[in-house]
């Protein structure tokens, strides 16, 4: 099947990955992560032949949370404590974009070698998942703004979700159950993060994590 809808959507996700490498505003990142959330949550509908009702419920719930609640809550968090909008990169934007390209190439190569496509039947599924993971990691390591780091974490979760829903067709319902709980956990983390962020804001009147370097040996 040449015009495989999944692959087409996923190619958009890959594009968003590139954008998120280059994004310099937190808001942009939020939008991107929301988009990715929506996309990765609808993927299961296209995979596998039939969909159990339970599976459907799980998937929809995931969609809502990933696509709406999490981005909104971050947005609210930013609004509450007037947090700076720039992501304060440790690695510069151009370098970041290059990294992004490298990541995408690497992931494609890796998935080609591992040849997982045969399992799910979609070429781009695995590269995208791994790319999302890598991007999340990248944001966590290369952005000083706490919000950006949180978003990186969410992006990683998206990647894992994609892996989970893509890989295990056979035992999907259990995985999805797990994943849903994972998402809930993600939400809880978001709440805690929000608390912490607000307190960080109160304590340091900034969320630049460079300030959080006092505890060391």
């Amino acid at each position, binding site marked *: 099947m040449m015009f495989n809808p999944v692959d087409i959507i996923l190619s958009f996700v890959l594009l968003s990955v590139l954008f998120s490498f280059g994004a310099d505003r937190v808001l942009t990142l939020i939008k991107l992560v929301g988009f990715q959330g929506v996309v990765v949550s609808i993927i299961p509908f296209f995979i596998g032949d039939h969909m159990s009702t339970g599976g459907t419920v799980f998937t929809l719930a995931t969609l809502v949370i990933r696509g709406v609640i999490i981005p909104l809550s971050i947005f609210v968090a930013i609004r509450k404590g007037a947090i700076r909008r720039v992501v304060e990169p440790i690695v510069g934007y151009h370098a970041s974009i290059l990294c992004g390209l490298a990541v995408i190439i690497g992931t494609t190569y890796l998935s080609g070698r591992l040849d997982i496509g045969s399992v799910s039947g979609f070429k781009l599924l695995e590269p995208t998942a791994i790319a999302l993971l890598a991007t999340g990691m990248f944001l966590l390591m290369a952005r000083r703004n706490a919000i950006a780091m949180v978003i990186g974490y969410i992006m990683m979760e998206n990647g894992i979700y994609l892996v989970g829903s893509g890989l*295990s067709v056979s035992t999907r319902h*259990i995985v999805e159950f*797990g994943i849903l709980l994972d998402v809930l*956990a993600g939400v*809880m983390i978001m709440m805690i993060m929000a608390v912490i962020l607000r307190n960080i804001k109160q304590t340091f009147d900034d969320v630049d994590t460079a300030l*959080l370097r006092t*505890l060391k040996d």
Partner: protein
Amino acid sequence: MVEIIILTPFIAGLIVFFVFSAFSLPKSIGRFLLVLTGAVHLTLSFMLWRNHPQAIFDQYFAVTPEGMLSLLVISLLFFLISVYTVGFLKESQIPSESLFTGSMLVFLSTMTMVTLSNHIMVMWIAIEATTLASAPLIYTHRSAASLEATWKYVLICSVGIAMALLGSVLVVFSMGQANAGTPISFSALTGVAKTLDPLWLKAGFVFILVGYGTKMGLAPMHTWLPDAHSEAPSPASALLSGVLLNCAYLGIFKTNKIMVAAGLQDFSGGILMVFGLLSILAAATFILKQNEYKRMLAYSSIENMGIIAFGTGVGGLGVYGAVICMIHHSLIKSSLFLSSGNILLGYGDRLIKNTGNLVKGMPRTFVAFFAGFAGIAGFPPFGLFIGELCIILAAFRAGFHVAVTVFILSLCVIFAGFGNQVMKICFEDCNTAIKIKEKACMVWPQYLLLLTSLILCFYIPDSLNQTISDAVTAIGGGLR
């Protein structure tokens, strides 16, 4: 009816948190509830141990020997720590006590869930939940440092746990089409381990090891641990170091069980040994010149986790040693953290150089602290000695001569550093006025913990011994 033991502390925690924060009841009731729940939990877990009941959701929960062991340890520790906490709360000012107490209880329930969970995903969720429940504990003091510690703790652990999730997914994937429909419970997977796809199983193990290893405090993922342990109030640190790390270890233990059943123990064992040695070395690096005693204790926890991982990797008698080490480390280290809490309250300073002459100032704490040091350093009559002995002998038996040499040498370095600091705290001249008087409820828990370890060093009741040997033989441990 296994789930009750999970729910009881959870409900109690919610009650404490919401009810007390809603209409301000006297604090004493909350403290009483804390101790009460601890007692109830202890009795419940004993009942659980005596007569293994079936779980309602038996595909998610089951009573396994290793889980049972850590559950017993957890409830004993929690009870004693809760008794200590009463005295501790009286002495120290904590901003929102109801939050503290509540999250301690919820923390307990999540950890109980870890020990009882038999399902990969449930295990993962439980461990994630422990992170969430313990985060408020670390942030109790509301200071900048504690904030930073919490931030690091939550973020690093979440990232690690995410890795663990990926690992779990991969392990599930390794089932492939071959045996669809088997529940994804550890027991079932162990059953069908031979048919699993080794490549994905290995990958899954790697991710799970790194993930749960982050939580367990294996180097180089240990970075959050000293900050969190030193910033949290002492009862919380005692819980974190004494129990939480074991829970994370439980995840690795169960996964390693699958690996062994799949005949991949060389791979998994090798990785475990490497991480173990790294952790011990890291601990040695930072204990040698440590200037805060709580951080020192935290690093010593890293060391002991490394020892446990090493023993598990060595296999054979080493696994037995590892399990023994796990039990005794929990007992001794929590007692040490409680004593360090007394020291902190007494001297009002975290730095070693501002403490001293504990033997004169707080004699009863001194006894507990020094005995704990002797125990953690692996001196009989404390049980950690047996564990380390078994691990070293097993390593020689298995022929890992280089590894065991590094192991022994770094243990020596750690002892030298630890001993130096402890001598300073206990005997160095110091003219600080002690701020608190040692109440019975702030020393007896330590004494009881140490006494337990002392007794378990010489006599282990047969039923408990049975449980231990079940847990050990499950992953190919044993005397030979």
